[in-house]
């Protein structure tokens, strides 16, 4: 299906893909690469992914959202190396009215964060690097050989 991409995300193309005359509400969410995390300055990051499961899980999440709300959903997530300010994820939902579009978009981003097997490795200004781990104290675990 191609939810995961090494290439820059083309948001206008995603909006066009779900827009239609009967859908008057379009909501877009972009997640951008932030320059700080837990008090450390981030220089860049890498996304690592279990690509076949990313495709399967994103497909399931999209189907759940479209089943729950009368809407169309499209999403893309980057993999590989990203710079500060790059779009890491984009989600577009389109529905007849804004309520369904907002609700579906929120559902999709929260489900992606919880369920889609993608891992973020951050590189810091102090020369260290770490895997982001929302379950760890401080939100990261040190990267590299144990």
């Amino acid at each position, binding site marked *: 299906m191609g939810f995961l991409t090494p290439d820059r995300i083309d948001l206008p193309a995603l909006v066009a893909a779900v827009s239609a005359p009967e859908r008057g509400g379009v909501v877009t969410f972009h*997640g951008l690469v932030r320059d700080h995390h837990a008090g450390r300055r981030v220089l860049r990051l890498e*996304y*690592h*992914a*279990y690509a*076949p*499961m990313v495709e*399967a*899980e994103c497909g399931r999440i999209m189907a759940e959202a479209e089943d729950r709300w009368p809407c169309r959903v499209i999403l893309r*997530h980057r993999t590989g190396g990203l710079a500060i300010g790059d779009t*890491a*994820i984009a989600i577009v939902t389109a529905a007849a009215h804004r309520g369904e579009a907002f609700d579906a978009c929120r559902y999709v*981003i929260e489900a*992606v*964060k*919880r*369920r*889609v*097997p*993608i*891992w*973020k*490795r951050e590189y810091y200004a102090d020369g260290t690097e770490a*895997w*982001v*781990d*929302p*379950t*760890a104290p401080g939100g990261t*675990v040190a*990267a*590299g*050989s*144990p």
Partner: protein
Amino acid sequence: MSTSPGSSVRVLLFARYAELLGTEAAEITIPAGGTVSDAVVAIRALPGGHLLPPRLLVARNLVQVGLEEPVGPGDELALLPPMSGG
């Protein structure tokens, strides 16, 4: 009936877990009729496996599953560190 030799199962490792075990894929052997729980025991016995955290998320054939789920020949298992996409 003779004792079954068990099943050989491929396990994929990612991100921090691949670093801890020094590999992105491993073959393990689990008892015939074994479960994800048996697979986790076998993975912990691999070099570096003792460094894995106590609680592990496991996917079988691209779907997250519980420890009691069966695992058979041809299944692909993956150990999933806490996810941080989005």
